[in-house]
């Protein structure tokens, strides 16, 4: 089976390294120039306009997307806050048909300004530290939601405090806490507003139904729903815009879009050009090797039913050994009762002559005369001599002799009845 040795190509390339390097440089320069030109090409006015329009459109898409993302952030915050309020607010948990109410009623007696004193109490309840104190004591009552359930009003010198809760016990607890702290707060207010007397007129607890609570609750839930819908719409718009942007890019991106660094591109192309040159050389050498009619190896002669009596290769020497080859030839000579052998050489160079000399010397010891015919010497007389001797051994050189030459000699021998014992392959 024919074999191509890659190392043979590499050796051949190395032996002609100057030409190879020259070719690599040429290709590198050509490819480098192509790369540089490609990267450096100035877009025509029309292309520039196209690029401008394209970039403007992309920018618009990007701005829209940014706006939508900001809106989404705000909408999300709104949704989160409203959800938190809906989940945690006591007011929203009230049963509008059965609200637990605790009421406190106080009267203020004083010679000083009643209004100021009452306002002080109202301020303490609505804006003061009462709620924070309350939420510390009652952890189930978050501070931010107390304002909704504790209301107070004044009428003359009467202070009314109303506490709403869904739990009767909790409403009572809150009212008791309020009562205690109002008592304590009196001292503070007296220091500012002057002396007064505060009497608890009434403390009641009852349940009531209030449609306005239901309305407020529904309003809060509707707000939550609205915020969620807004968020969903914004998300959908964002997806649509992103898809529209992607579709626009796919269908409208101008060819002259990417103008890269010319030097970098040129270097990249040069490297590629060098590699391309080497690959091209290897391909050309491979194809020459495949297509040419030169003899490649002794196996091809064997496949054509021409016996190979011996072969010689550089670095390997004789394979089989010269002695083995000589023995085979002697056997042929004995069988045919010959004392003369024709070595029919297809080429004439030092290598062939060296091998022939080795055979001549070895066969001389056995009284077998070797007559050599080289291409330059062949004429009618030599041909007649070959016919008279009646035998020949073909000597072919790998890479130099072709199948056509071999075939010609085979046919010549067949035509004149010369027995071709086999061949010796050199190289």
């Amino acid at each position, binding site marked *: 089976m024919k074999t191509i040795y890659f190392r043979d190509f590499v050796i051949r390339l190395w032996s002609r390294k100057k030409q190879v390097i020259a070719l690599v440089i040429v290709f590198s320069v050509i490819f480098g120039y192509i790369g540089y030109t490609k990267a450096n090409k100035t877009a025509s006015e029309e292309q520039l306009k196209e690029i401008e329009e394209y970039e403007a459109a992309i920018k618009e898409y990007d701005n829209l997307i940014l706006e939508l993302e900001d809106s989404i952030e705000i909408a999300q915050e709104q949704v989160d806050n409203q959800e938190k309020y809906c989940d945690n607010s006591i007011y929203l948990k009230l049963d509008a048909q059965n609200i637990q109410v605790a009421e406190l009623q106080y009267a203020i007696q004083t010679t000083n300004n009643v209004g100021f004193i009452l306002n002080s109490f109202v301020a303490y309840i609505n804006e003061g530290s009462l709620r924070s104190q309350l939420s510390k004591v009652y952890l189930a009552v978050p501070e931010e939601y107390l304002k909704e359930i504790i209301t107070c009003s004044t009428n003359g010198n009467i202070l009314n405090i109303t506490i709403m809760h869904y739990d009767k016990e909790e409403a009572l607890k809150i009212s008791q806490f309020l009562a205690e702290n109002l008592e304590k707060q009196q001292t503070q207010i007296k220091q500012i507003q002057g002396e007064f007397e505060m009497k608890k007129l009434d403390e009641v607890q009852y349940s009531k139904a209030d449609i306005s609570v239901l309305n407020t609750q529904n309003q809060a839930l509707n707000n939550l729903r609205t915020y969620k819908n807004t968020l969903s719409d914004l998300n959908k718009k964002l997806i649509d815009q992103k898809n529209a942007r992607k579709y626009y890019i796919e269908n409208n991106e101008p060819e002259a879009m990417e103008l890269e660094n010319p030097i970098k591109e040129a270097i990249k192309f040069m490297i590629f050009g060098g590699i*391309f040159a080497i*690959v091209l050389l290897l391909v050309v050498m*491979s*194809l020459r090797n495949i297509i040419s*009619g030169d003899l490649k190896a002794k196996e091809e002669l064997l*496949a054509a039913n021409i016996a190979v009596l011996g072969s010689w290769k550089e670095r390997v020497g004789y394979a089989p050994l010269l002695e083995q080859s000589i023995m085979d030839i002697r056997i042929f000579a004995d069988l045919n009762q010959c004392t003369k052998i024709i070595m029919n050489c297809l080429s004439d160079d030092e290598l062939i002559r060296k091998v022939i000399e080795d055979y001549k010397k070895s066969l001389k010891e056995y009284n077998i005369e070797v007559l050599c015919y080289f291409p330059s010497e062949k004429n009618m007389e030599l041909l007649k001599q070959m016919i008279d001797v009646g035998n020949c051994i073909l000597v072919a050189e790998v890479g130099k002799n072709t199948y056509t030459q071999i075939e010609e000699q085979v046919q010549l021998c067949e035509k004149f009845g010369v027995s071709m014992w086999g061949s010796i392959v050199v190289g």
Partner: protein
Amino acid sequence: MKLKEKIDIIFYNYFDAEKLYLIAFSIYLTGEVFGTTMFLLPGKIFVLCKLLAIGLLALKMLGIDQFKVHQYLVICFLMADAVLVALFSGYTEVLMWMIFLVAAKEVSFDKILKVYFTITFSIIVIAMLASLMGIIVNLQYVMYEKGRIRNSFGIVYPTDFASHIFYLMLTFLYLKRKQLSNVYYISCIAICIMVYLYCYTRLDVSCMFFAALGYWILDWSKGKYTSLRKKYLIDREFKRFFVYSMPIATAIMFTLTILYNPNNIILLNLDRWLSSRLDLGKRGLFDYPIKLFGQYVYMNGNGFSTKTPNWDKYFFVDCSYIYNYLRYGLVFLLVLLIVYVACCKKYYDDKYFLLTVALISLNCMIAHHLIELAYNPFALALFAKCSIDTPKRCFLSG
């Protein structure tokens, strides 16, 4: 001296038939393989390659080749069919394929395969390198549902890249058939894995795997179980089956395609596994009339670009048998099958060749490269000289 004698002398002395063919093949193949890459060379180069190749082949066939009467008649018939296909359908691929087929007379098949391997392998390597370096585009297709990226490595589509690798692998295995060892098989499996990971071409990778497995089995079974094989005539049955592998594959694909029905759960799943090849094939068979010499069939595939396709307009028949039938006609499909059966009969004693044709038949059920010489050169065996290691003085018979 008469003119005829002078011409004979010129052709005999100055032209070598085999060299002419191989040079023509090299030129044509270079153009065709580059045409499957993203180098996007000008169209004139491909036309030039074809014209040069045709010129050289014409020189060979008209000036050097000798035909017996029956061979001459067969060639006339084949060329007539190719010309009619070109006239009726407008496609010249069949004509080029046929010219190379008939001009391969007395050209060593091994040399044809070696030229194919050398050129295709080199161009694929160049394309891969160029795509990885950014010289040309590496088309990457994202499969979101599977979280995968399919690379095409400088070729127009990932499956086309995988097809190149498949046919290169087949060619290499066939050329090295007498010298294969475990190293080659392990390398083939490694290539299968790499192609699967980076291209995700399940069906082509399966064919590659079967190629490695098939060659390994043939290698492993040499000289084993001889008495059992003789008793049950295993070898004979193997050869018989593989000789007709392509007609069998054609029949299977036509049957499945015609019978395809999305309401049938088995066929539906099979179609999904084959990536809609049955559905698209059926559309082609029922949308286009039966034609003896082919017709123009517009196909809109995914190659050359990663733009999201308009799936409403997507139509590409990947099965070679249906593809060739639709575009090149019923007569050409039959010719194709006869050509491959004839090749198998010619190489009846070469199990590796039979296996190779069987693998090609399998691959052509899912790929459309049957008559593209840039992928598949094996049909050229019909008129080419048998390989050098059969006991014939092939290169002497000139």
